[in-house]
């Protein structure tokens, strides 16, 4: 059984305050609460719906929240003081992998048709590159949107553009648009394309507003997307409750991934307290249903919440994220990226929470010299990340 009865000495009985953004990958938090997984583990949790990642970050930093549904890069950015005051945050639990995609609007798609020699050129961005080169220098730059400057969406979009030879700072303009406003912004012509999680790619296709070109999986392989991030000071003060929440979230993730629960899952998530949307909008978020369109999602690209060590924190991915921050001029000088990765992505606590043997390994660690080489390789677009075998490969 769980530790809930063995440790009744928790002095603080106030509920744990956890923030979430109403996106489909908040599902494990909502399910852990609504299906009683938190309570079964003896933890009283209050979920708080937040309107922006900035709000999640500030409230966790200033103790208005203890932890939250976070982008995998957020605990790293906060711990390094990038874009915010330096506050130690950490994660010992990966909530989801994958689910992102890049979609462009109909108008741009039509213009690219004559530049695409093949559908591969359309999907790789080569057609986009040719189109940009053909344009007048005075033309308004094309505008792409993503969800947050420190996000896989920003980095995947920039990576995809740069592989096609497009300078993501000079040749296009990249702005932030909140996910719920993406499809509408595309429809209104305020943006030409975007990188976002589901269901916002599928909905653009279904509504005939845009064409999806590529999934995040095809750009990066299978990678962590959201994590359970907490204020490190809280984690130190409340280790039992922290670990109990990890156990609850692991059960919730398995529940979310079980197809027989999908109808109930979608019904719960659509509630005004959570995503406040129609059940129909959520169908594309889970399982293998996708709208009819010119593009088929590879099975591996679907969002995944459990199995295959999905929930294990990957310090190697923290290194990858820091290299992305470096590549896109967000990162200052850091003495040891590996030390940061180890402090922020805590594998040891994950194993401890699940009561299994500590299988933390440090094969991912890099020496100072290797780190410098690694940053150069990533900056030049000459390195890839493969979470499936937890290794970094250079071309």
């Amino acid at each position, binding site marked *: 059984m769980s530790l809930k009865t063995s440790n009744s000495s928790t002095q603080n009985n106030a509920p744990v305050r956890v923030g979430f953004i109403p996106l489909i990958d908040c599902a494990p938090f909502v399910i852990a609460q609504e299906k009683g997984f938190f309570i079964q583990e003896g933890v009283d949790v209050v979920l708080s719906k937040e*309107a922006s990642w*900035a709000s999640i970050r500030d409230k966790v*930093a200033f103790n208005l929240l203890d932890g939250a549904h976070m982008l995998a890069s957020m605990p790293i950015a906060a711990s390094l003081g990038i874009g915010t005051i330096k506050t130690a945050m950490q994660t010992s639990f990966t909530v989801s992998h994958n689910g992102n995609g890049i979609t462009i609007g109909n108008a741009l798609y039509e213009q690219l048709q004559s530049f695409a020699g093949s559908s591969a050129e359309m999907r790789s961005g080569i057609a986009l590159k040719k189109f940009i080169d053909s344009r007048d220098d005075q033309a308004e730059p094309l505008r792409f949107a993503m969800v*947050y400057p420190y996000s896989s969406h920003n980095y995947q979009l920039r990576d995809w553009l740069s592989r096609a030879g497009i300078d993501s700072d000079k040749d296009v303009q990249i702005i932030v648009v909140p996910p719920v406003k993406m499809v509408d912004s595309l429809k209104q012509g305020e943006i030409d394309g975007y990188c976002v999680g589901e269901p916002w790619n599928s909905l653009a296709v279904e509504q005939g507003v845009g064409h999806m070109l590529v999934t995040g999986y095809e750009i990066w392989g299978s990678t962590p997307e959201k994590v359970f991030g907490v204020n490190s000071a809280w984690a130190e003060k409340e280790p039992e409750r922290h670990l109990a929440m990890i156990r609850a979230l692991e059960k919730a993730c398995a529940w979310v991934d079980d197809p027989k629960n999908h109808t109930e899952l979608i019904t719960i998530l659509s509630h005004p307290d959570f995503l406040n949307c129609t059940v129909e909008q959520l169908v594309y978020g889970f399982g293998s249903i996708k709208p009819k369109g010119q593009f088929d999602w590879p099975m591996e690209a679907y969002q995944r919440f459990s199995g295959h060590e999905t929930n294990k924190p990957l310090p190697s991915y923290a290194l990858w994220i820091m290299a992305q921050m470096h590549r896109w001029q967000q990162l200052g000088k850091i003495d040891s990226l590996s030390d940061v990765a180890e402090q922020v992505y805590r594998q040891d606590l994950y194993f401890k929470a699940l009561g299994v043997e500590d299988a933390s390994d440090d094969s991912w660690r890099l020496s100072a010299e290797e780190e410098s080489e690694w940053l150069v390789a990533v900056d030049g677009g000459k390195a890839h990340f493969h979470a499936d075998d937890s290794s970094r490969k250079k071309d």
Partner: protein
Amino acid sequence: MSAPPVKELTVMLVDNEPARAAIVEQAMTDSGYRVIRRLENAKNLTEAVTEYQPDMVIIDIESPDRDMLENMSRLTKDNPRPIVMFAEEDDSHHVEAAIRAGVSAYVVDGVQSGSVKALLQVAIARFREFHALRSELESVKSQLEDRKLIDKAKGLIMKHQKCDEPAAYQALRKLAMDRSQRMTDVARNIISVMELMGGSR
């Protein structure tokens, strides 16, 4: 000639709560700031910031548009950055007070920290005042709702028991005391039971 003229600081206020925005704008204007734009719907927030180049942006912490500003902050030195970035150790309680009050601020490089603090204080005070006003309004509203419920329940009892108003009121009161419930809760129960029995019409 005494001190050199201090540059008038320009503040962009982004708030989709029009009543609060008006209060905050007035207070900031009274304190000598120039409020250059008050955007209720920050659809073109990025363009507006680029065009008006405010020294500070004050935005509701609950606004979904904050993430747009987060992105601007990395582009150039002149773009506003979140106030938390500027907080020194001893300032962090200012920032915390701001966050608790629901104020978030973005500031460009080179603005004196004293000016930031003074502005924050104005904004925090007005946000709090607005919260207080709103909760007062809500409590008045809920008192009115309570009154309506009790009146409706009384009416149902009078009709059902063929009694007068004081008797119906006494019956309600007794029920509430016997069950140690609030009058409103008892009234709500009576209404729903009567409606179930079709007795409300």
